[in-house]
């Protein structure tokens, strides 16, 4: 357990660069996303994670470090977080990471976070490209941190972090001792826009780059080769089939009931 004081609270926010949600995406020969062909943006939920980290920093002081793993253009996403107000960045970059699945990604991220003395690690609860929501939990497990996922509010008091964990029926109030890992949902806040001053200030902020050797991870633990899962095949979503139109000539109700029953809805 660690007592957090305002001078030393350290937050690591993990952010991911993803293809713009609206963009047409294509896969490369190895069934991984062709990142060159689409506009890249910061994963939307990660903006909420950065915002929450900045709000905690505004309330408690301390330091916000933004961490991202990805190819060279990922620096744009790190810069965006820095222009929102994060203090420094860590860019995990290595050709060997290409094609890493969630398990492999969690290893690289955990190694990059390890040893930084983070009191709190914050993630967006899912990425808009992979949509698995498992990486935060995996990273917490690897680091041996309590995980407070799907949070719609986060507060820190002394050595305790408390969150509202969104559930199907509402939310649970959960708490853990620091250090801990939190993932956030979009209900939690309204992310700020970077100001021009923020953008200019970000230019001067430090971004450390780390490769696999620096992480102490070997090439066979990550990337396409080190991943437990791989995409074997992919197909475009078939175009929407035409709906069935039922003209109500007195038996409309029966026709709808038959349809729902055939689809096993009733």
């Amino acid at each position, binding site marked *: 357990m660690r007592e957090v004081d305002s001078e030393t609270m350290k937050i690591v926010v993990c952010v991911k660069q993803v293809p713009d949600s609206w963009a047409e995406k294509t896969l490369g020969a190895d069934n991984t996303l062709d990142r060159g062909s689409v506009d890249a943006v910061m994963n939307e939920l990660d903006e909420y994670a950065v915002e929450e980290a900045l709000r905690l920093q505004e309330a408690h002081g301390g330091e916000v470090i933004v961490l991202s793993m990805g190819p060279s253009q990922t620096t744009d996403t790190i*810069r965006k977080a820095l*222009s929102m107000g994060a203090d420094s960045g860590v860019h995990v970059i290595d050709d060997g990471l290409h094609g890493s699945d969630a398990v492999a990604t969690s290893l690289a991220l955990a190694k990059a976070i390890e040893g930084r003395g983070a009191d709190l690690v914050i993630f967006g609860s899912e990425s808009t490209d992979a949509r698995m929501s498992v990486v935060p939990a995996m990273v917490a497990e690897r680091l041996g941190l309590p995980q407070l996922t799907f949070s719609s509010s986060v507060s820190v008091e002394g050595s305790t972090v408390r969150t509202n964990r969104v559930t199907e029926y509402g939310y649970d109030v959960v708490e853990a001792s620091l250090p801990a890992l939190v993932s956030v949902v979009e209900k939690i806040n309204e992310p*700020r*826009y970077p*100001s*021009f*001053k923020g*953008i*200019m200030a970000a230019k001067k902020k430090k971004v450390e780059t780390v490769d696999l050797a620096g992480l102490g991870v070997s090439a066979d633990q990550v990337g396409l080769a080190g991943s437990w899962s791989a995409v074997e095949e992919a197909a475009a979503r078939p175009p929407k089939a035409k709906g069935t139109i039922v003209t109500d000539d007195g038996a409309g109700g029966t026709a709808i009931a038959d349809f729902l029953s055939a689809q096993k809805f009733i």
Partner: protein
Amino acid sequence: MLVEPTDEQEAFRKVVRDFAASEIAPHAEAWDRDHTFPVDVVLAMGELGLFGLPFPEEYGGGGADLTTLCIAIEELARVDQSMAITLEAGVGLGANPIFQFGTEEQRQRWLPDLVAGRALGGFGLTEPDAGSDAGGTRTRAVLDDAAGEWVIDGEKAFITNSGTPITSLVTVTAVTASVGGRPEISAIVVPAGTAGFEVQPPYRKMGWHASDTHGLSFVDCRVPADHLLGERGRGFAQFLSILDDGRVAIAALALGVIECCLEECRRYANERVAFGRAIGANQAVAFKVADLAVMAEAARALVYGAAVRRDAGRSFKKEAAIAKLYACEAAVTATREATQIFGGYGFMDETLVSRQYRDAKILEIGEGTSEIQRLVISRELGLPVQ
């Protein structure tokens, strides 16, 4: 001379574009319909740092330049001219005269709120019977030595940002003496709420419905003597000296309008089907869209060519007038053609290009008409034009 924008300017453009798309575009039609000045959004523009862009950090500004301001105005104008002109006027007419001509004490008193976008300032030059013709100024200010006050009487017309809930001041030009039969014009800061300073009801305008515009009247309006801005007798000359910045900024606004037309028409010409094919398959439509692209490129080159000269400290009077003249006339042409491409929908108030069409006309009039720009250009060319 075109200079590539810096990485930071490009990053900033993206931020303003996101802001405009999320915070302005979804509401602009309703603001236009209801003639609403959206205070909350203007305050949010302030938080983004837009109103402080070209001012030094010591007053809370962004320490940027005219080029960066133009980027912001251009991006706002792509979705809504009213918010773009609110920014342009807030910076160019509200804060800039105080920054340029204010004493240190005046700057400290008035600039921080204007620069932060917590407050707006207006500039009252135009009168019912005087615009670019400053000699026609009827508003008078007499110094009451005993009271240490200026006493202002007169009328101002078409003053942007003069009656919003966050308007903190209006700088007015007034005749303070007659020197050799010619009026001596000075600029005086009148804080909002000063007794004798009355804001008239908003105008009924052809466009820019979400922008705040009023006539102002001054009856025995008294402000302290230290509210004189800059040199006595130099009020109009001072204003002329900062007009060039405003012309480039208005040209940037016009550029955003042309880009909006290009984007909307390119999409619509591909989507809209008539006679069994997209209307863009017809040369009559496709060529109009091609012309929009030409106007956008030409306007961009002129706007940023002038802005970059200004930021490099070079003369840019002629370039500013050329940019304003071309971009604003092109914006009126572009919106007219875009409305034509949209056919019947183009005539509907809620169609974006229709709003841009109504809004664009003022661009050929405000901050110096097209005719005044031609006059400036002619003089810069050394012609003996009257």
